[in-house]
């Protein structure tokens, strides 16, 4: 079932950098969709459109539609706060907020008006378990999150998103700064997550793309070159450009 429908989406930043050119694609529910391609291809821009984080950036023009559950989220009347709770995001660098591990997790919930202690505690435990970090931090929840290792921090960031019980999770090269073991843990968490969430991942390597993709989309210079089943994409790509990239001939 399609969770997100993107129709003819175009975007250009004010400084003329990275843009999207007429992207149309459908993103399936309960699957990992991977957006890959060389840097500057528009992958991150597309992610940032899905939770309207581009509102923070100076955008010159933005056209097209993004339907999530049938509603156009680019509509000015959209409640962006509610949208961002529904569409969570994990960034390339693990950025824990300058507070304790627990407060990092409850931050979004408290903003949403949740004050009940029990609910908050339950959310902390549930989301940390889901992000596969509970065992490592359960005894130090009140310590500053910054004291954790990079890999642990990134999983706390993931848990922070999960605490809001989103429907869609965006991950922008979430393992780019991590060692292989931490990367493995994050990827394993992703595998669990897709049972209940729609996951959109910008991987940090083609290998990671191939490992994780149910569906894959290849972006080049703001254009969607090829989109289809993940397994087929990495064994038998249809487009020459895709093949060149996967084979490591550029990028």
């Amino acid at each position, binding site marked *: 079932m399609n969770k997100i429908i993107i129709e003819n989406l175009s975007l250009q930043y004010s400084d003329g950098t990275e843009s999207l050119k007429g992207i149309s694609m459908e993103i399936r529910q309960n699957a990992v969709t991977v957006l890959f391609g060389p840097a500057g291809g528009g992958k991150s821009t597309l992610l940032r459109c899905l*939770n309207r*984080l581009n509102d*923070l950036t*100076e955008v010159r023009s933005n056209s097209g539609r993004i339907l999530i559950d049938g509603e156009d989220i680019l509509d000015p009347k959209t409640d962006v*706060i*509610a949208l*961002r*709770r529904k569409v*969570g*995001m994990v*960034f390339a*660098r693990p*950025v824990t*907020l*300058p507070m304790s591990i627990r407060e990092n997790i409850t*931050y*979004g919930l408290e*903003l*949403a008006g949740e004050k009940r202690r029990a609910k908050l505690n339950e959310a902390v435990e549930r989301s940390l378990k889901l992000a596969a970090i509970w065992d490592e931090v359960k005894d130090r929840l009140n310590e*500053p999150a*910054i004291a954790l290792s990079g890999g642990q921090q990134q999983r706390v*960031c993931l848990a*922070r*998103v999960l605490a*809001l019980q989103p429907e869609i999770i965006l991950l922008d090269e979430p393992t780019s700064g991590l060692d292989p073991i931490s990367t493995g843990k994050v990827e394993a968490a992703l595998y669990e997550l897709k049972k209940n969430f729609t996951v959109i991942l910008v991987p940090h390597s083609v290998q990671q793309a191939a490992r994780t993709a149910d569906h894959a989309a290849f972006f080049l210079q703001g254009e969607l070159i090829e989109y289809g089943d993940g397994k087929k994409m990495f064994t038998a790509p249809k487009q020459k450009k895709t093949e060149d990239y996967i084979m490591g001939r550029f990028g």
Partner: protein
Amino acid sequence: MMKLLARNRHSVQRLGYGLITLMAMVTVVPIVGTVLFILFKGGSAISWEFLTGFPHDGMRAGGILPAIVGTLYLTIGTAIFSVPLGIAAAIYLSEYASDNRWTRLIRLAIINLAGIPSVVYGLFGLGLFVLFLQFGTSILAASLTLSIMTLPVIISTSEEALRSVPQSFRTVSISLGATRWQTIRRIVLKEALPGILTGVILGLERAAGETAPILFTGAAFFLPRLPQSPFDATMALPYHLFVISTQVPEMPIQIQYGTALVLLIFVLTMNVIATVIRSRARAKRQW
């Protein structure tokens, strides 16, 4: 030849370095000297009676309590107006304003506010607060005048502190469903607080030591009692020091040094607090 040149170059280097070092010392040593000298000279004047008594015998004897209390009132009054306004303006510049013509105009205005001579602030305060708004020569009028003078210091230091908070914190907070203001209040302000505090204290330190802006807006030559309301005029340490060192003949030197010392301690304490807050925050900062 080359060797000679090289030796020459090195003696020029040594001479130059020596000269610059000397200049820096000539600049700095008198500062330390001034402070130590007043500490030394004024120390013997300080007594419980001096700090808590009223002046008498035409200010040639007694204490300086009304001046101490007055400076305290003026500093607090200045803080009440300038701190919220200054921090809010800094938040606007750092978090909301885009780089357009209006923002540049605001920045130019702040630069100009910072450069206006303090005595001109006094004239302005006289024209607007004392006469036009009819606050009279009062703590209120003087505090308002000092507030506007202090504003640029508070705005600029606070803005710098706010801008030093990593952008990624804001992005993450927004992505978790926070509004812009929630992000500012819960993350940005909290992290920038030591920097803001440092700026606020340095600004108030200047206000506490100023004389010219309060000359015609709130300072009293001599008052037999403490001010009772914001609409009363007040004595103040810097003005009192000015008065007793230039306007009162046969003023005992001890009282002059004592007053200078109390003013200096007032200002130094604020300065040290600001410095300590800043360096502790730097040591603690993890981003």
